[in-house]
């Protein structure tokens, strides 16, 4: 009878993956579930193990600030993703066509990505300062009626965050799309040239559809950034003026620490996670399908 001789290497491989297992199960899965559990209790400053059902969620959705933050996030998300995709795409096209100059300029468009969200927020906070920033500079040029005080304007504060983060992330989209374009068969470009297809047509109807996978990747990454938006808001507007640029992550953080209502905060976190998953699942799926098709 053969006793099974255990492969020593396999055993060591299992051992090596223990940290990963711990992190995945305890830190990711465990923490998320624990957070969920707290959201079903009435914990305030400390966790309490009672069970109040969906009470916290009801409170959440009758909270003005929370609802406002959700709306802000939706608006921000739409504008941010759309702007990044379009600008990144246009930049990629321009650089692809002008290989020499474009190559040198590529780093120029990507350097903002190397800066932290905090630095980004602070720089743009400074530039959009009504009294001393762009508005003032343009006025000094003679346009005395020029207004660009969005930073302190309740209705427009959110857009300033869009501007700052789009500046930071477009380079990333450009890089991803460029890499995708480089992967396209060179013969397609030549065929277009022989067929005398105008460039804008080629890019819109032929190339862009072929870039579905990089576009999906870029969108996925951008959406991750949207869900996690925090640093830039704190640095740039602190959620203000008032709650004009409040976002869910800030709401959660404030309630976790400052306002000492961890159950409410956890409920908010759960809602955020759920919406993130809902939005990203189809993209995940689309990418997996396209990967399988290309494999």
């Amino acid at each position, binding site marked *: 009878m053969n006793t099974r001789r255990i492969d020593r290497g396999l055993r060591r491989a299992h051992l090596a993956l223990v940290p990963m297992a711990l992190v995945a199960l305890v830190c990711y899965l465990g923490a998320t579930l624990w957070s969920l559990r707290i959201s079903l209790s009435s914990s305030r400053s400390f966790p309490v193990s009672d069970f109040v059902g969906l009470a916290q969620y009801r409170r959440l959705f009758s909270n003005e600030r929370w609802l406002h933050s959700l709306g802000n996030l939706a608006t921000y998300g739409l504008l941010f993703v759309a702007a990044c995709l379009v600008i990144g795409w246009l930049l990629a096209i321009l650089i692809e066509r002008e290989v020499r100059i474009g190559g040198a300029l590529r780093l120029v468009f990507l350097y903002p990505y190397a800066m932290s969200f905090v*630095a980004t927020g602070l720089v743009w906070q400074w530039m959009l300062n009504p009294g001393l920033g762009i508005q003032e500079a343009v006025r000094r040029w003679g346009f005395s009626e020029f207004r660009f005080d969005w930073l302190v304007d309740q209705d427009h504060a959110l857009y300033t965050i869009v501007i700052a983060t789009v500046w930071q992330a477009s380079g990333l989209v450009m890089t991803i799309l460029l890499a995708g374009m480089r992967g396209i068969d060179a013969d397609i470009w030549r065929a277009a040239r022989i067929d005398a297809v105008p460039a804008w047509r080629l890019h819109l109807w032929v190339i862009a559809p072929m870039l579905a996978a990089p576009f999906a990747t870029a969108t996925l990454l951008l959406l991750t950034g949207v869900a996690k938006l925090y640093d830039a808001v704190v640095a740039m507007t602190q959620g203000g003026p008032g709650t004009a640029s409040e976002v869910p992550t800030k709401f959660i953080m404030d309630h976790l620490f400052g306002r000492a209502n961890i159950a409410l905060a956890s409920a908010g976190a759960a809602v955020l996670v759920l919406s993130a998953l809902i939005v990203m699942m189809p993209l995940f799926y689309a990418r997996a399908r396209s990967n399988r098709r290309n494999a």
Partner: protein
Amino acid sequence: MSAQQLMRPSAPRRWYADPARLALLALLVSAALCFLLPLYVMSLTSFKSMEEIRNTSLFALPPQLSFAAWQAAWSSACTGVACEGISAGFWNSVLIVIPSTLIAVGLGALNGYALAFWRLRGAGSLFAVLMIGAFLPIQVMMLPLVRLLAPLHLVGTLTGIIIVHVIFSMPVMTLIFRNYYAALPRELFLAARLDGAGFLYAFLRLMLPMSLPMLAVAAIMQATGVWNDYLLGLVFAGREHLPMTVQLNNLVNTTTGTREYNVDMAATLLTALVPLLIYALAGRWFVRGIAAGSLKA
């Protein structure tokens, strides 16, 4: 145009003679200028005195270069309670970045190697959990993590913040290494196994040396990411170890009295200097890292 003319590779026409090309170049250059604007403004402002800032336009060059703001930002500006400038934060960030980069990259390579070459039951699903977790907002895991690390006396310590950074960077690190190793010919691994190499030996003598470029890329991504982090540093680093980004925000947004914009900008530049430098020196690999890591999840 005859077919022959179409077939010939287009002869380089003078750029100033071709209106379409001229327009494109103009577009490209103006876009580049727009992107460079903040950097330009930041630098300018940091060299002006407060008088000059109030009296001249944002875009005007400083009449003379003054380093006073830089000095203040580094050693005397107030970051919350202490007024010792942002230099403390600089060293804290260095102490945080170096170990977390080394550990995270090492673990990522080990995990990627184990996942790519060894068929382990359950590893696939574990990896999937890790990956999904990577896309979730940190706030979900913030409190439980604090509760987990508190009894271990790790909250507010250097070790604690390093561990937290390793935890949150594990998905991306593991992913890029797994993809890299999966693309290598499997026969190299099999040959090493047949020669008697065990798990660790094959990793240290064969796979790790072969992945030097990827190690560089991962290190760049990780170092930049950790340096630029704000939230984790805020919650887990503790007052003695606050990273530069947190101190920067304190410096700028929590001052009482008049704001010194030149000091603010100098401090921002100082904080952004390290990643920008890494980017300037190793930009090519930085780009490669982004493309590689994100394209093949």
